[in-house]
């Protein structure tokens, strides 16, 4: 009769294992905190106002930039120009910005580029910004690579986009600036080229286009990219975890195949959890160093979503399988849990649809945003609210099931002393197993939440010591990532079937127990069904 490893592991061995895993956890945290830089870097770029002297304005081979040979002729918007129309004004943003006398270029390790727009609008009593006005932007993005001549910009993408402009002002006095909210502009899933150039025009094609945006002074674009160092540390972590999880999965599946029975639901769930973690761990980001893969952001979301979905389902099923009351009729299967799992499925599907609507379309047009149109906003909100509701329902379900398990446990506890030793051991094993996982899960979840809140509360860097600077945000990410890997690693190890036989009853003096054991002699014959289910069933027969 076999149980899982955790039941048969001696306290000393368990302590050693847990210590080792905790050590790994601390290492993960420290790698993020001490080695890795901030996860993302921002550069705020002030737009250079260029004068477009060309006759054909739709010419996408003509680019405006402020550095290098062939840079544009600048215009000061502070003065009035009667000879200029809106078609002659181009805001040029050349990224990255030079520093230290050096013209930096983007590295492919920097992974992605997100652009945020900020408008500086000056107050003018005669041209106030209307509360919910839209600004129409003709945005063109070009790229250039190292070694290309200064003027050889090639079109990357181009789009005419509408954005909502939310501005308010405290002091309504001339020449004060409005407080305008930031406007998301673009998201590039891959940073394949070395230099990028953004040209923005504010067209007036119809009489009511761009008229209520007030007296525009400056346009700022903040570009956010992942830091190369962070990617390197992150990828090394992935590369380290990936083979570990694969190896432990193979070992786990071998263990199960060595048994004479078919794998039970919980073991299948563990396996799928391991596989989804492998998918998350697979360091396919290495490919971005060689190829242009703009779908990486989307793929990353999908991989994460898949992992969360399996993890959530696993918790549900784990609680369900430890319910200690079960109908004897059938081997438990996924079908039994359809009601519980539908919440997870619904949440995931709605998030997936939302993500496809936003980041999926951004594959075609990086300037796309679902939040601009009313229909899109409603659609996005619907999906997010649906996902939120399903998460709520899920957690209610989970709490209810855990509560029920605990009730059953306390109920069974009372009956424990009257049982025979074998059965008592089994029940104790089940209870121990469940409590162990509950403890580990709660610990992990609590640490994640606490870490997240700490990160939100204390922005920037943490200083424990004058000499040690800890990059908290990175430490949080690597720490949490390492933690869930270690969590699943230990689940796979500890909840794998054990080779050990049940200890032969030490206290067989009790004749009643003996007799009971004889009475239940058929059990060991069909022994290798997962201990818990078999015994629960027997208990119900009882």
């Amino acid at each position: 009769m076999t149980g899982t490893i955790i039941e048969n592991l001696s306290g000393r061995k368990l302590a050693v294992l847990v210590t080792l895993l905790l050590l790994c956890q601390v290492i993960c945290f420290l790698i993020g905190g001490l080695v890795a830089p901030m996860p993302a870097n921002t550069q705020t770029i002030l737009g250079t106002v260029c004068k477009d002297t060309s006759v054909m304005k739709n010419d996408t081979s003509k680019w405006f930039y402020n550095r290098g040979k062939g840079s544009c002729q600048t215009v000061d918007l502070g003065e009035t120009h009667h000879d200029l129309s809106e078609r002659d004004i181009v805001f040029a943003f050349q990224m990255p910005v030079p520093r230290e006398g050096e013209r930096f270029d983007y590295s492919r390790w920097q992974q992605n580029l997100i652009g945020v727009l900020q408008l500086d609008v000056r107050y003018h009593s005669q041209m106030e910004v209307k509360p919910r006005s839209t600004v129409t932007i003709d945005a063109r993005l070009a790229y250039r690579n190292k070694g290309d001549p200064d003027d050889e910009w090639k079109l990357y993408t181009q789009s005419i986009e509408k954005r909502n402009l939310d501005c308010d002002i405290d002091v309504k006095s001339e020449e004060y600036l409005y407080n305008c909210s930031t406007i998301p502009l673009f998201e590039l899933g891959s940073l394949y080229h070395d230099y990028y150039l953004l040209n923005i025009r504010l067209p007036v094609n119809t009489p009511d286009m761009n008229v209520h945006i007030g007296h525009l002074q400056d346009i700022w674009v903040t570009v956010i990219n992942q830091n190369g160092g962070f990617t390197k540390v992150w990828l090394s972590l992935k590369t380290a975890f990936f083979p570990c999880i694969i190896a432990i999965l193979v070992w786990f599946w071998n263990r199960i195949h060595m048994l004479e029975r078919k794998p039970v639901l919980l073991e299948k769930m563990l396996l799928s959890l391991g596989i989804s973690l492998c998918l998350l761990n697979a360091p396919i980001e290495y490919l971005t160093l060689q190829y242009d893969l703009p779908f990486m952001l989307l793929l990353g979301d999908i991989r994460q979503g898949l992992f969360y979905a399996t993890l959530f389902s696993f918790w549900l099923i784990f609680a369900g399988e430890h319910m200690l009351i079960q109908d004897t009729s059938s081997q438990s299967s996924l079908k039994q849990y359809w009601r519980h799992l539908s919440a997870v499925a619904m949440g995931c599907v709605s998030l997936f649809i939302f993500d496809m609507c936003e980041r999926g379309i951004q594959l075609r047009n990086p300037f796309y945003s679902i939040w601009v149109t009313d229909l899109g906003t409603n659609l996005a909100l619907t999906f997010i609210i649906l996902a939120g509701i399903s998460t709520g329902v899920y957690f209610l379900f989970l709490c209810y099931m855990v509560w029920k398990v605990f009730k059953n446990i306390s109920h069974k506890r009372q009956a424990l002393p009257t049982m025979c030793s074998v059965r008592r051991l089994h029940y104790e094993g089940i209870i121990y197993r469940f409590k162990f996982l509950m403890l580990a899960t709660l610990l992990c979840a609590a640490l994640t939440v606490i870490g997240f809140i700490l990160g939100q509360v204390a922005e920037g860097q943490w200083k424990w010591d004058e000499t040690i600077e800890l990059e908290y945000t990175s430490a949080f990410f690597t720490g949490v990532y390492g933690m869930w890997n270690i969590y699943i690693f230990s689940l796979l190890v500890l909840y794998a079937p054990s080779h050990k036989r049940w200890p032969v009853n030490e206290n067989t003096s009790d004749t009643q127990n003996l007799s009971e054991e004889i009475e239940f002699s058929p059990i060991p014959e069909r022994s290798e069904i997962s201990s818990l289910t078999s015994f629960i069933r027997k208990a119900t027969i009882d």
Partner: protein
Amino acid sequence: MAGPPIDMKWLCYIVIIMCLRCEAANKPRRGRGSMWWGIAKAGEPNTLSPLSPGVLYMDPAVHATLRRKQRRLARENPGVLAAVAKGASMAVAECQHQFKYRRWNCSTRNFLRGKNMFGKIVDRGCRETAFLYAITSAGVTHAVSRACAEGAIESCTCDYSHVDRAPHRSRAATAANVRVWKWGGCSDNIGFGFKFSREFVDTGERGKTLREKMNLHNNEAGRMHVQTEMRQECKCHGMSGSCTVKTCWMRLPSFRSVGDALKDRFDGASRVMMPNTEVEAPVQRNDAAPHRVPRRDRYRFQLRPHNPDHKTPGVKDLVYLESSPGFCEKNPRLGIPGTHGRTCNDTSIGVDGCDLMCCGRGYRTETMFVVERCNCTFHWCCDVKCKLCRTEKVVHTCL
């Protein structure tokens, strides 16, 4: 054979003349750290060469007002002079905006060589001077940070929070810079503006005398205001755009808000004196060798309030040494034009009211018809369509 002695004589003569000139140039000792303000005039369009953006054609007279170190800084950081000029003219405009309705209205003179742009008021360590120092220093900080963001100055530095590295300009350092940028990024704009302003604006102030300490303190206060008026903006870009990953950055304030904050500090400026322990120090240290105050320690001093009941001034407070002169009457010795002919508001009881503005001299009231632009509509980008309205206006002018 007759050549060399004559040459020597000439040389001596030139040297003597130069020495005399040096003496003459050093005459206005107190405000000498602020001579660069004249650069504001250079920022005006007519002296700026439109052909080469970023490269400033500098009037030699303006260039002469810069100290040697300032010229070196300008040479080492191409494009920075245009930013400094813009910052200075921005500061002048802001000062004139803030003091529009006060007796002292921050008026500037036409630029004359060897004279201060704001007049001789700068020689006095009064409130107005404190504001001038603070706003100009803030202007340079702001404009240089802005130029960094635009990419107009290529030598802006990064704030490497995780790498402690001395700035070197060698090939190895360049490679290191690129490596550091690819590893940890580089996002700092205000840091360079702040540091540059310290280098450029504080050049003349060695922090030895009380007046120099006052200037240093006010310059620093101006810079601090630019830094603390910055606003944080954030963007969430985690899974599906959620806030699991959030990146924040600081946004440069509008210069108007810096000016507002400094004006508040002007109204609450504190009069200071040297702490007792340090008053004697410069007198005792009467050795021939110029005692260089280490740069780091230049900003580490504490000024004591004149009135011991007041609290000591903070980094963002403006400080002054002596009470302001009266700005009512023309005072050629201090370069004060007086409030004669200024317009005032007869209904106000504040400083812009006719009673205070005209210093009790009374005022003249005129009714005139003004043709003004009104009902303007703005058409992006550059077109403002206005109607011309003829309005009747009552104008009060101080006698």
